[in-house]
């Protein structure tokens, strides 16, 4: 490929530290791959939002007592979909037990919207039984 533009990676497994530069780097790489594969701005917004929410939850809640442990991010971007797996080493949680943040009694709370936003913006969001690994898929609409 001499003289050509370097192609963005389409997949990687990353051990992510709870450091802004580390999080930004994986985010940038996934979004560059998405852009290369023709995902529009709104899709990139959705993918970034879900990734940030999942990574934040993993560090804030999963690694509450494991501050120096890395979170694993396994991602693949293809022409038709983006798949991101975020796994922490914490005890896990029950996503269905998270209260609805859009309920009027919870609207003014500053937290608790991450899981809802992941589900709202991604095509598919699934947790393992333990609740320490989330697999998210964004399916690119055909008319994109």
């Amino acid at each position, binding site marked *: 490929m001499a003289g050509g533009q370097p192609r963005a990676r389409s997949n990687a497994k990353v051990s992510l530290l709870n450091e*802004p530069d580390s*999080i*930004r780097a994986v*985010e*940038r790489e996934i*979004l560059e791959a998405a*852009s290369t594969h023709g995902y529009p*701005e*709104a899709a*990139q*917004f959705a993918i*970034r*939002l879900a990734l*940030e*929410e999942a*990574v*934040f939850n993993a560090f804030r809640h999963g690694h509450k007592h494991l501050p120096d442990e890395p979170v694993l991010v396994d991602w693949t971007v293809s022409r038709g979909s983006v798949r991101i797996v975020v796994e922490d080493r914490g005890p896990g949680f029950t996503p269905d037990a998270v209260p609805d*943040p*859009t309920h*009027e009694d919870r*609207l*003014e*709370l*500053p*937290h608790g*919207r*991450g899981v*809802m*936003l992941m589900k*709202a*913006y991604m095509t598919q969001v699934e947790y393992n039984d333990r609740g320490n690994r989330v697999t998210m898929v964004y399916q690119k609409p055909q008319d994109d």
Partner: protein
Amino acid sequence: MANVNLQVEHRTEPWGVLLTVRGSAGVTNLSELDRHILPIVASKPALVVLDASGLEFISSLGIGSFTTLHRGLKPSGQLRIAGANANVRAVFERTKLTTLLALFDSVEDALRG
């Protein structure tokens, strides 16, 4: 989509406070936003207009910071959001914060209420 840092300014005006936010209100850079929110709340303005026209990205944490600002201004003050792009506006709508916060197309519209 640019992955730029967050730039925040606030300025006292005769009608209240203009809070201008540009860039990305994501997980990696919210301390800058929170640094501005505390003194705004302490000054108890009647109105805060958030100029979000330069805001490219917002996560639940950014939403949480604005919710904190909204709560801090009550009961005598209010927060209005101006100029948010379609993606940012959609996050406010999906989280149903549009039932708490009024969104306007521009700062001028927000001032008119």
